[in-house]
């Protein structure tokens, strides 16, 4: 212990998280009281409409496993926006992190991130995700479509540290100039015989040697993984792609792990939706489109509440995931981290609340 209790208590009386964080930033530091901030230290155009950022996190960062993702938050026009991004490199000796951002049409955060320059500061959450490589022997088939390459890129690179693992990576894009890490992957595959690499381009008129020109189907799967029963399949990409991969491989492959990027879909009024309460660890079913507070109370819960008319903020709780709606203004609330006043807000999809 560095300080005896009395001076420590004295200091804690004067220094609080907002004060510490304010002065830290004023002096150009990214250290923070209890949050993980990271500074952009490198930026590279990765492909058409995609940018790779190298980040230097502060001491709050606790590490991650290849294949995992992290919630990244940045401020855009005064509002903090949070999206999930995958690390595109295994953990490095210098502690820096690499993520790759695909600019989404009309996407406020992805557009802002692609425009970030070295020196900018973002915030990181806790790394998460179960699509990781177990230690020891294993044969893998990585199926990536579009930005689904990002976690599979760090898994492909991680093969180098796992001498008993071998993998085949098939990576789909519409056009060749949209392929991220094309050179890096070719170099890796040339150096590392335990990685076999195929690109697949669905809208490119001319194909080069080794490239596929069609979508995922049974024949293609047979070609890249003839002994499917001995292979673990990891698929990552848009929902339709992952579902197709699941239909082809689940039950036939040794193991199937799919991760899809999907924007949450809004449910119509009255349809039952699942509300997960993260702090109390409960999951309940409530009708979409009706105020959440009375719906939760009807099931025996007693969340904090006050005026019941949307003004005192007592019942506000954080939306972790899903789509809500402010029934007073009609406004849709889908941004993770938004406050939902549950007395005047309804669920419009399956929701997770910090309650």
């Amino acid at each position, binding site marked *: 212990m560095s300080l005896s209790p009395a001076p420590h208590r*004295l200091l804690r*009386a004067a220094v609080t998280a907002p004060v510490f964080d304010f002065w830290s930033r004023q002096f150009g530091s990214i250290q923070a009281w209890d949050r993980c901030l990271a500074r952009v230290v490198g930026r590279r155009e990765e492909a058409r409409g995609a940018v790779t950022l190298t980040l230097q996190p502060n001491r709050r960062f606790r590490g991650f496993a290849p294949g995992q993702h992290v919630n990244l*938050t940045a401020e855009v026009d005064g509002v*903090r926006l949070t999206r999930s991004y995958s690390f595109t490199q295994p953990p490095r000796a210098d502690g820096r992190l690499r993520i790759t951002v695909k600019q989404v049409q009309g996407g406020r955060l992805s557009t802002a991130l692609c425009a970030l320059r070295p020196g900018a500061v973002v915030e990181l959450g806790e790394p998460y995700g179960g699509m990781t490589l177990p230690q020891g022997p294993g044969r893998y088939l990585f199926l990536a479509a579009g930005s689904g390459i990002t976690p599979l890129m760090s898994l492909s690179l991680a093969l180098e540290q796992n001498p008993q693992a071998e993998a085949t990576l098939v990576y789909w894009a519409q056009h060749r100039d949209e392929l991220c890490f094309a050179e890096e992957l070719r170099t890796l595959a040339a150096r590392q015989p335990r990685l076999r690499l195929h690109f697949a381009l669905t809208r490119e008129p001319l194909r080069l040697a080794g490239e596929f020109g069609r979508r995922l189907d049974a024949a293609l799967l047979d070609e890249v993984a003839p002994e499917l029963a001995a292979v673990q399949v990891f698929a990552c990409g848009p929902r339709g792609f992952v579902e197709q991969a699941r239909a082809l491989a689940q039950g036939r492959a040794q193991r199937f792990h799919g991760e899809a990027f999907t924007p949450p879909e809004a449910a119509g009024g009255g349809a039952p939706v699942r509300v997960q309460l993260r702090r109390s660890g409960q999951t309940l079913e409530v009708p979409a489109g009706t105020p959440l507070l009375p719906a939760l109370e009807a099931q025996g819960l007693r969340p904090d509440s006050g*005026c019941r*008319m949307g*003004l005192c903020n007592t019942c*506000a709780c954080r939306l972790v995931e899903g789509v809500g709606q402010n029934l007073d203004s009609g406004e849709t609330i889908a941004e993770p981290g938004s*406050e939902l006043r549950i007395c005047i807000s309804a669920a419009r999809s399956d929701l997770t609340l910090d309650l």
Partner: protein
Amino acid sequence: MTSAALNRPLSVAELDAFGAELDALRARTMAQVGAEDARYIRRIVATVRYTEAAGRALLFFGALPPAWVLGTLLLGLSKILENMELGHNVMHGQYDWMRDPHLHGKTYEWDIVGTSDNWRYTHNYKHHTYTNVRGMDDDIGYGLLRLFPEQRWRPFYLFQPLIAVIFALLFQWGVAIQRLELGKVFSGRKTKAELREEFRPVGRKMRRQLLKDYVLFPLLAGPFFLPVLLGNLVANGMRNLWTYAVIFCGHFTADAETFPKSVLQNESRGHWYLRQLRGSSNLSGGRLLHIMTGNLSHQIEHHLYPDMPARRYAQVAPEVRAICARYGQNYNTGSMWSQFGQVIWRILRHALPSRPGKAAPLVAPVAEAV
């Protein structure tokens, strides 16, 4: 002038239209809230931090009278800004849309001896929902003062001119114990054990504030322990007096009204708006006054829209005033001298027995309303 002469009773249909107009104004304004408001509140945060640092630094040279005076003023200014424009407004959730954890309504902790959690209950919920409803809004006299003739007179109130001054000097302590409802302990409706339990977080917060202002910073000043301690005491006192004056001007001016509990039965949104209007009063003045009062100089607008970023109140005020004029409602505003003068008059007048005048109804009797 009586309230009845200033305000026309509204029919049920008029109340609905009145409410709809105020709702529409709210929607139009909230749609504009964004980057500019974020920049503004960040500038306020920076001003609070830098004035505090400068004030405390100057107080370390507090043996020199000019440094002591300037340091104390800067620290007092910082504490007032933190309390009103930053803390009070952030705790209303006015900046929740930024999703900044340090500007988050439900977790912000302000720099006074009262806990933010108790404030959120007594102020955000009780006071803002039941504004000026007798028996529901403890802000009416804070259980210490008789400010309205509808409050029952007791001989104790003869001392209230003196009590009001002491309360003003110790205002943050009053806020700190408001939720403990000590009156209930004296009358036996709350046990000592319950009180002890409720006091625990309050005691922790009090200790923290006392350690900071009266132990840590004076100790850091070494030989200048005493000037720093006194400077901090005066800065806290400045804030007590200022916040007391601003808050009392908001609801206890001559034309501000209180209401019986019966108004709450099946209250419509329009009726709720009207009650907020009739129970609140504004302070006219310049930009500096608005910032230093945390924009509570626009108490009326704040009560209509408690979760709207307060810097927007000046923008909506002319429209609110025009709506009030259209519906024959008094828009209670005046200079700080005039409004606070009326507050002082109430404190003096209702120390003595007084009888309520004829109450002005909010809603027109049905026969007239047809």
